[in-house]
């Protein structure tokens, strides 16, 4: 179904540590989204890119996260200083275009546990 690759699958960090995860979108998909899914199955949009440009991000992402999608390299999402409340499944999705809605395809996620 989806060819989005996310690494690592599991990540364990202590509070205050940096946590970095990566995503390779489906080939030919210029738009990448990051979402956070908590244990209550609630999804939160974090940030999205078209190629290397940030399209949208929420306040939390702007303040505490660092994200990029360099050309010819995996996209990455990094929490600068992990907090217990950051423990969640981080999902990367990619799609074909931004201006009109296009189906999003999700990777398996990186499950972050902050001790």
């Amino acid at each position, binding site marked *: 179904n989806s060819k989005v690759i996310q690494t690592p699958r599991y990540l364990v960090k202590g509070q205050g540590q940096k946590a970095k995860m990566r995503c390779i979108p489906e080939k030919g998909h210029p738009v990448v989204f990051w979402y956070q899914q908590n244990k209550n*199955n609630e999804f939160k949009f974090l940030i999205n890119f078209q190629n290397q440009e940030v399209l949208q991000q929420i306040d939390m992402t702007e303040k505490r996260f660092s994200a990029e999608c360099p050309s010819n390299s995996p996209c990455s999402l990094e929490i600068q200083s992990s907090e217990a409340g950051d423990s969640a499944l981080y999902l990367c999705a990619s799609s074909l275009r931004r201006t009109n809605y296009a189906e999003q395809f999700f990777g398996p996620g990186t499950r972050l546990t902050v001790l």
Partner: protein
Amino acid sequence: GDQVEQSPSALSLHEGTGSALRCNFTTTMRAVQWFRKNSRGSLINLFYLASGTKENGRLKSAFDSKERYSTLHIRDAQLEDSGTYFCAAERGGRALIFGTGTTVSVSP
């Protein structure tokens, strides 16, 4: 903010029966996707609709943007249909807004 209300939260079916899941939207959405979370926890794409209905095997989905809802029908349920189903809607070039999921349990 925009919300997606998914119901029911849990659904029990016997093999061979069917039922429907529903998502109501608090605002006009341009498209909807339906997913099933597989045994490894990955979201599997079931349907993407900008309007109308689509059918795939024993699954059928409908989306009415004007009436602000989408449905997913399961017919002739099989054991392998068990899992958590999510709808997610989008307003146009933006992030998906997810429902909170429906856990479907199919028993013999």
